[in-house]
């Protein structure tokens, strides 16, 4: 069944048991909305020098957007900034591939669990769900780097 390519076991797992959910202390906070469906996320990042020490978040959305935030947390927390940015870029590439990129070993190595989202890229309406938290993370990180609009709770 084609649906299974989107709703991988792993995605459903993350959806039911999200990692790192909840808002904690951070260096910057952003609020992103997917206007096409109303999914929302509030996300904070915390850095210690170059190391991303926490991504905390709260929001509402479908299994894809929730699982994606959970995977992001699992994958990026603890990474150096440059490494995290690389992972984000590869994830973006995969999601915008319209199902046409066949993930190779190199990609799998970079994306780990996030590779499970490959099937979602075939569903244009859902790509934005998968990207919501990743765009929020990028934005929050840019704020930290730019020193602009820092908010802490």
């Amino acid at each position, binding site marked *: *069944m*084609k*649906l299974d390519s*989107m*709703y991988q076991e792993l995605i*459903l797992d993350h959806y039911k048991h999200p990692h790192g959910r909840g808002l904690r202390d951070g260096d910057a906070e952003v609020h992103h909305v997917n206007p*096409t*469906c*109303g*999914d*929302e996320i509030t996300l904070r990042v915390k850095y210690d020098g170059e190391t991303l020490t926490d991504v905390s978040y709260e929001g*509402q*959305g*479908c*299994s*894809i957007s*929730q699982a994606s935030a959970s995977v992001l947390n699992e994958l990026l927390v603890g990474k150096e900034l440059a490494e995290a940015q690389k992972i984000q870029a590869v994830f973006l590439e995969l999601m915008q591939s319209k199902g046409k990129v066949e993930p190779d070993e190199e990609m799998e190595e970079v994306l780990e669990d996030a590779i499970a989202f490959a099937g979602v890229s075939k*569903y244009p309406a*859902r790509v934005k*769900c998968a990207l919501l938290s990743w765009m929020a993370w990028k934005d929050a990180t840019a704020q930290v780097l730019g020193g602009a609009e820092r908010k802490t709770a």
Partner: protein
Amino acid sequence: MTQLPGLLDIEAIRKDFPLLDRVVHDGKKIVYLDNAATSQKPRQVLDALNEYYERHNANVHRGVHVLAEEATALYEGSRDKVAAFINAPSRDEVIFTKNASESLNLVANMLGWADEPYRVDHETEIAITEMEHHSNIVPWQLLSQRTGAKLKWFGLTDDGRLDLSNIEEVITEKTKIVSFTLVSNIMGTVNPVDAIVRRAQEVGALVLIDASQAAPHMPLDVQALGADFVAFTGHKMCGPTGIGVLWGRQELLEDLPPFLGGGEMIETVSMHSSTYAPAPHKFEAGTPPIAQAVGLGAAVDYLTSIGMDKIAAHEHAITEYAVGRLLEVPDLRIIGPTTAEDRGAAISFTLGDIHPHDVGQVLDEQGIAVRVGHHCARPVCLRYGIPATTRASFYLYSSPAEVDALIDGLEHVRNFFG
């Protein structure tokens, strides 16, 4: 097949709609339950479009050649058809726009630029409701921001109806315009026009009714409604995209200022000043959606040939059946009226904790097209503390078998995420 009293001859009707034969996802025939978003088009409408473009296409109003005359006769003939469809006292009260949103914005802008006694400014108020489509909220927010007028609204009761208990506070002596939907696109609620119009008239406020979800589904009589303006959209009533209607009372259309400026809407132009053509042309700047008006005319003919009262009865039967069956689904909560009384054929619901996106996706896989999200009525979701809903909405070609397919599909959704 389930037989319900009041149903139309669905098999015959479905033959008119080519899209309903569409097969999706490896052999599943489409079950189209997204009619509140847009309707499918009967062959009669597509034929009218083709005939227009293949034989009569020309720009309207300013030509002496035969094509221009034919195109003008077709375009203006559609105005006659629409006027008859809504029982307008005069054809000149029917303005063609691009969609209902433009119709609603048109009224908001007219009032913002109007002279007294119509002018909306910082000393005046605007009244809407919490169940409006965004297209009947944002224009008023913009008008309110730009003029300083105060925007007020009716809240909702727990069972999805307008709370009119504070009507005298919402509609006051300062109110210039009351704008509300006849039928909610998210909950299906049919609103009590009389009570609102009566209060508006008491204080001398104008009334704009958003009939986008009514015109396709029930007999519409603008004189009986007692409103000053009525807006609706072609694509939801078997017509093409790209065409909407604003009906307005003649004397208002004469008094109110134009909105968009350009060709067709003028009487005479010099570089120093211009005068405007009488309504409806005053409000139709530029080349109008000619083919789309012709298509809407054909849609109106089609609906009329079946009979709007029969269509309403059909949808009522389907809705009653659907509400009953949906309420049997475990964990399903209908957002809006839970009976078929005073409600249209759009039914929103939540299904336990399963996000509507996921509900919609799994239904889609079975060929069932529903809409998920806030349906351009986010305040309703906020009001009921939910992020979104799944909405099934029916039309004249919807069958009890399609309701059954939906129910089976929801069972599958529950299993999938169970």
